[in-house]
C-alpha cells in the first residue's frame, strides 16, 4: 500500500506517528506539570512528571521527565539522541559517557533531575566542533575501534581529557580513559588515537 494513499484510510506508520505526536503534545501542553523551582517545590512524587530545563549541545531545551529517569534515558528516549549508548546501565563501562559542565560522567548513573540548569554535551554535539572532528578523524586513522559500540563513550572521554589537558602523557591518557571498557580490546589503538588527536589539536 502506498503511504500517502487517497482512500482516506490511515496507514499504520501514519497512525503510529500521529499517535505519538498527540501524546507528546498532551504532555507538553499540560499546565499542571510543575517546574523544578527549588524554593517552591520541595517534594516531588515519583508519579508526577517534571519539566526539566538544561543546555543540551549548546541549545536550551526542556522536556518532561519522571524523577526516577536517568540522564541516559532522557537523552535516548526524550531527546532521541541515541549516540550515547546504554550498555551496562550500572556506572561501570563508560558507553554512556557524556560531558556535564566540562567533566566526563556516566549518564546512566545520574538522575536527570540533577542536571537541571547544567550544560550537557553528547557525542552528537561535538561532531560539528573542531576538536570533535579531529578526535573522530584520529580514531579513524589510528584504527581506535573494532566493533565501534564503545566508541562514542571513548570519544567523549578523550574529548573531556583534551578539554582540560592539551598535551597529555601516555599515563595521563590511560588514567583518563580507564573508565571506558572496550570488549574488543582495542585499548592500544585507542591510546594511539588520543595521542594523534592531541598532536593535531
Amino acid at each position, binding site marked *: 500500500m502506498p503511504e500517502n494513499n487517497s482512500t482516506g484510510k490511515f496507514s499504520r506508520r501514519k497512525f503510529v506517528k500521529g499517535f505519538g505526536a498527540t501524546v507528546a503534545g498532551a504532555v507538553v501542553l499540560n499546565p499542571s506539570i510543575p517546574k*523544578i523551582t527549588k524554593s517552591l517545590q520541595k517534594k516531588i512524587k515519583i508519579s508526577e512528571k517534571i519539566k526539566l530545563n538544561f543546555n543540551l549541545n549548546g541549545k536550551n531545551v526542556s522536556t518532561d521527565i519522571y524523577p526516577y529517569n536517568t540522564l541516559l534515558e532522557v537523552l535516548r528516549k526524550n531527546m532521541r539522541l541515541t549516540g550515547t549508548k546504554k550498555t551496562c546501565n550500572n556506572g561501570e563501562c563508560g558507553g554512556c*559517557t557524556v560531558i556535564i559542565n566540562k567533566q566526563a560522567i556516566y549518564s546512566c548513573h545520574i538522575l536527570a533531575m540533577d542536571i537541571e540548569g547544567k550544560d550537557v554535551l553528547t557525542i552528537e554535539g561535538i561532531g560539528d566542533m573542531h576538536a570533535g572532528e579531529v578526535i573522530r578523524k584520529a580514531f579513524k586513522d589510528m584504527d581506535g575501534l573494532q566493533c565501534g559500540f564503545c566508541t562514542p563513550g571513548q570519544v567523549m572521554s578523550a574529548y573531556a581529557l583534551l578539554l582540560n589537558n592539551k598535551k597529555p602523557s601516555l599515563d595521563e591518557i590511560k588514567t583518563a580513559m580507564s573508565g571506558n571498557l572496550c570488549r574488543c580490546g582495542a585499548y592500544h589503538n585507542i591510546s594511539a588515537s588520543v595521542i594523534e588527536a592531541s598532536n593535531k589539536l
Partner: protein
Amino acid sequence: MKFKSYVYPLSLSAASAFLANKNELNFLNAGGTDLLGLLKEDIIKADNILNLKYLKDLKYINQEPSGELNIGALTSISEIINNVFIKKNYNVLHQAASQIASPQLRNIGTVGGNLCQRPRCNYFRGDFNCLRKGGDTCFAFDGFNKYHCIMNGGPCFIVNPSDLAPALISLGAFVSVFSNGREKEIPLQDFYILPSANYLKETILEKGDIVTKIRIPAQPRDLKSNYIKIKERETWDFALVSLAASLVLDGKKITKGSLVFGGVAPAPYFSVKGNKDLIGLDLKNNKAIESFAEAFVKDANPLSMNGYKAIMMKNIIIKLFSEII
C-alpha cells in the same frame, strides 16, 4: 528504581529532620554513585530520596592558618585529586583519591559518600537475603569468600571498600556529623563499627545523621606518606589489600607514624601495638622490617579462599617501606 518521591531539602537541618522520620526509609543523594547502584539492584527500598547536591556550603577545601585542613563532605573526589596543596602535603590522600573507581565516578562521587558507601560483598549486592540485609546467614562464610575479610570478621565478613578512609585515619582525621540540630566531631577511626557490634550497618550513623566535614589536623613538616592499593585489574577496581602510611623519619629511623589497611577487615584496619612497634624501626634493617610485618599479620584469621590476603598484607608493608625511603 523504586522510590516514592524526590525531595529537595533547603537546608542541612531540614534534610536531617526528613531523614530522621521513623516511619520512612529515606536516603541521601550526594554524588549518587553508590545510591543509584543500590536502588537499581533493589538492595535498598527507599521511600524518599533527598537531594543534597544544592547544599553549596558543604563543598569546600579550606586550609586554615594553623595548618589544619577542612574538607566539606560534598567535595568531589576529583577536587581532592586536583587540589595542589593536598598533592604537595598529603601524598597519601592524593594517591588514595587518584585510585578510586574511574574518572567519571570520581567527578561526581563525594568524600562523604566514599566514607559511607555500603560494602561490595557479592552476596550483599546479589540476590541473597544475607545477614546484613536482615536474613540469618552469612553466605560468604561457607561460600565464595575470596574478597572477604581476614581480620575482625564475624558474624558478617565484609571488607570496608573505602580508599579515603585508611588514608584519612593514617593522618589522624576527624569527621563531623550533623545530628539532632548539632554538629559533633569524632575521630574517623571511631566512625566505623564492626559486625560483632552491629551487623546491619557499617558506621555509627543513626537515622537523621549527616556527615558534613572532614578535619585533618596539622601535620609535621617532614611527613612522608603514601598509599599502595593492590587490585586485580590495574585500574577501576576495589582493593584486595591497600595500605596507607603516614610516617616521620629521622634519617632511616621511624620516629612517628601510623599504618592503616583497607580491604582486610570490615572497618579500616590498624593495630595499636603495630603502630607502637613502628617507632624506632630502622628501614635499612631488612630483618627487623620482616619480623615487624610478620607480627602485623599474626592476628589474621582467613576464610577458605582469602589466605592470600595475609601474605599480601605482609608484602605490602615491605613494599611501602622500600618505596618511602
